């Protein structure tokens, strides 16, 4: 490409104080906060506004509001979160999250959200895995939709600028700070540039690197990759969450999420001989707080004072491994799943009222009536706990001017996320990121003029896959990557498999250089995938190399060759960063939990 062509290639240039990339719960909440703090703010998103992944969240928003159980409180929520995360969490994030989540839920109600109600007219809360008390504010099983619509409508009310179907691909930097981002406009294929004093990344997860996932095409790791490339750090990328219950049959629906609310509302897992097998998989760590008979487990739903929690609602990592073990032992269904039965345990009316979208999803996609028959389920990749390293209070990354919130950020959930803690995470840290970004923009000088050399190289790289001629098909590389990650960086890992995965990822990277996509620039899915593949390969590499480094099993990371948790590894984060074009890793000690919070963790354990 000739010098100077980039400048003419960029057809749109915008300038804002704060640019928020991503329009899920974290992104919109960040933008609302930045806007209200007086910053000129734009939201830039890959899809139409209101379609982000948050919309698919089903079960609810975890917040110790104490509407159903007065015994609840932020300390209990903090402890549940830390224990669920196998203590690899950033304690300060877990604390802020538990303390602020109730206010964030109530704020949604101020903006028009309509949660299900208790008998005395307050927000109803439901049971979920790993939460000691019924704690999830919800709307049937479509809580994410309610949340995104409420935030979307609030953003419209405030008049925040939204750029829909704009895919940002690279951060621009100068003198060690962020100065904006460059990408393209889906509908025309034209390149666009946003100059910004501060950028908030709220781009979500990385699930599309795996074959069986509940994630949509959007989850290609753009934010993690952009951050890495711009010089920020990631932590604990080996920590991915395999959700225990995804649909499995027919093949086209494989991976689609079945909410944990099914078990929260009384559903139970069974193998093909009808046995409730979770009682065989209660780990030592949770023995004291988990029911060991069916009778106690069933009584727990209505009497939490005198009974312990059903093992069906152990944290997700435990349940996913148990299902995997049942299937491997030959006690799974012909389609390779186990049964999730609510039909024999709750009335059809109750099921339809509490789980309306599950009812429709199974009825219309699988031809199964869940009020009559059990569901068939198997684990599905759902979430990444690892991600961009942030400072707890400010959501600041290690790169000045760059902030991150939601799934793209790391620390809050440690080695395993509890259900319901994601929606609350989006709100708590979305708000904090927006606030910090606005403050930074307020004290920052105007960004230096965009670095034309950076723009030029980004533009050249983005346009490179376009063009006829022989080359690699991006769909083929993606599907091979997905197989590799599923097979070798999935629920159970070992050294030789991880090394093989890393080797294959290198070959995919080489092949990506040869990708060619036919067609023009306007709304070309092949071209879009070619661009996203670059991010996917970067995050897949970070995930596999971190997994190889962590020689223990903890939460979402299970090593067949190191099957036990290791006290020393439990004190370390794995930090990934780029040196030149090379990805490098190192370990760093976890932040030390202060004594008063340590006491909460210990007291909780004793009282159980």
């Amino acid at each position, binding site marked *: 490409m000739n010098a100077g062509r980039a400048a003419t290639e960029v057809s749109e240039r915008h300038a804002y104080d704060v640019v928020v990339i991503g329009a899920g719960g974290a992104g919109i909440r960040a933008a609302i906060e930045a806007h209200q703090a007086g910053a000129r703010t734009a939201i830039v998103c890959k899809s139409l506004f209101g379609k*982000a992944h948050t919309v*698919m969240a089903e079960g609810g928003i975890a917040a110790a509001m104490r509407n159903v159980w007065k015994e609840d409180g932020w300390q209990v929520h903090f402890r549940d979160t830390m224990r669920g995360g196998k203590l690899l969490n950033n304690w300060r994030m877990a604390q802020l999250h538990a303390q602020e989540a109730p206010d964030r839920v109530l704020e949604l*109600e101020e903006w028009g959200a309509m949660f299900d109600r208790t008998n005395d007219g307050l927000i109803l809360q439901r049971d979920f895995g790993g939460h000691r008390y019924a704690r999830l504010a919800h709307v049937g099983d479509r809580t*994410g939709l309610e949340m995104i619509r409420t935030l979307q409508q609030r953003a419209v009310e405030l008049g925040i600028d939204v750029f829909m179907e704009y895919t940002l691909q690279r951060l621009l930097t100068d003198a060690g700070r962020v100065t904006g981002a460059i990408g393209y406009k889906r*509908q025309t294929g034209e390149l666009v540039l946003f100059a910004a004093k501060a950028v908030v990344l709220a781009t979500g997860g990385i699930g599309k690197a795996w074959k069986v996932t509940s994630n949509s095409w959007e989850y290609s790791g753009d934010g993690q990759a952009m951050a890495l490339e711009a010089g920020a750090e990631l932590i604990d990328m080996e920590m991915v969450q395999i959700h225990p219950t995804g649909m499995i049959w027919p*093949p*086209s629906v494989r991976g689609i999420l079945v909410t944990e609310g099914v078990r929260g509302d009384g559903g139970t897992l069974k193998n093909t001989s009808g046995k409730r097998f979770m009682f065989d998989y209660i780990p030592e760590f949770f023995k004291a707080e988990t029911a060991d008979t069916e009778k106690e487990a069933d009584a727990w739903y209505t009497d939490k004072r005198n009974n312990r929690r059903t093992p069906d609602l152990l944290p997700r990592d435990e349940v996913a491994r148990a299902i995997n073990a049942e299937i491997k032992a030959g006690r799974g269904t012909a389609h390779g799943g186990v049964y999730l039965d609510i039909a024999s345990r709750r009335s059809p009316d109750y099921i339809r009222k509490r789980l309306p979208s599950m009812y429709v999803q199974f009825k*219309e996609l699988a031809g199964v009536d869940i009020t009559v028959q059990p569901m068939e389920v198997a684990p599905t990749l759902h979430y990444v706990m690892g991600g961009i390293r942030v400072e707890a209070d400010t959501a600041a990354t290690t790169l000045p001017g760059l902030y991150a919130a939601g799934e793209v950020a790391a620390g809050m959930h440690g080695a395993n996320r509890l259900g319901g803690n994601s929606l609350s995470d989006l709100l708590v840290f979305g708000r904090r990121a927006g606030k910090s970004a606005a403050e930074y923009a307020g004290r920052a000088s105007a960004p230096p003029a965009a670095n034309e050399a950076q723009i030029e190289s980004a533009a050249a790289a983005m346009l490179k896959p376009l063009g006829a001629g022989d080359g690699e098909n991006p*769909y083929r590389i993606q599907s091979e990557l997905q197989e590799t990650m599923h097979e070798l960086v999935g629920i159970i890992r070992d050294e030789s498999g991880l090394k093989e995965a890393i080797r294959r990822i290198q070959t995919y990277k080489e092949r990506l250089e040869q990708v060619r996509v036919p067609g023009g620039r306007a*709304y070309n899915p092949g071209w879009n995938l070619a661009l996203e593949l670059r991010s996917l390969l970067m995050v897949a590499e970070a995930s596999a190399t971190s997994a190889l480094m962590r020689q223990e099993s903890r939460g979402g990371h299970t090593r067949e060759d190191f099957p036990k948790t290791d006290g020393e590894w439990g004190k370390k984060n794995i930090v990934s960063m780029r040196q030149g074009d090379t990805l490098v890793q190192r370990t760093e000690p976890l932040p030390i939990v202060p004594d008063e919070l340590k006491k909460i963790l210990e007291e909780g354990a004793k009282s159980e």
Partner: protein
Amino acid sequence: MTSEYHFRVWRGDVSGGAFQEYRVPEEEGLVVLDVIHRIQQTQQPDLACRWNCKAGKCGSCSAEINGHPSLMCMTRMDEFKEGETVTVQPLQTFPVIKDLVTDVSFNYEVAKTIPAFKPKPREADGTRRMYQEDVDRVQEFRKCIECFLCQDVCHVIRDHEDNKKSFAGPRFFARLAELEMHPLDTNDRVALIKQKHGLGFCNITMCCSEVCPEHIHITDNAIIPLKERVVSEFYDPLAWVKRRLGL
């Protein structure tokens, strides 16, 4: 030879286009969106369509399938007869961008004209209380996934482009009904509903309710009650006299 699906998919852009024929090997349990994806993966990588959740929750993959406004992700291939040709075209009420992707910005513009939720003060104890019976009817409208199939099928704007200036469409009547029926809301939007949003254009043919993938009773539960509110506000003689007298 294995059996194949026969697809006719509209390909083109604002300058024009045509239906193209595709054949895709049959598989168990597919939906229309899967077949479109197979075409992208193996034959035409630049075939444009929108999608996200693939589970009927996000409302992105709206199209007209054999002439019927539908979500591609929720239309199962076993609904069609053996060997039946499946025709997929973009929503006809909105300008095409490329292939199955249309410019739905009209809807986002209408959304901006709706006065926001404005809650009354909290209870004395600082809480907000609403009862499930009261929120049930509002929650019906909040199920809307903004697929805009109701907007697509509504003949007021489908057949008369000019009406878009003065007609909000069924999606936004549901939104307005939701706000008007919200137990905590204090804004009054009735005059606006009559004047700016053109509720009177709707002659309750119920097409919107029929295509709604969330089975929201848009006509019965949103539009008709709103029409009743407009009538009692503007055409009730007693109310008219009271208004004139400033009561």
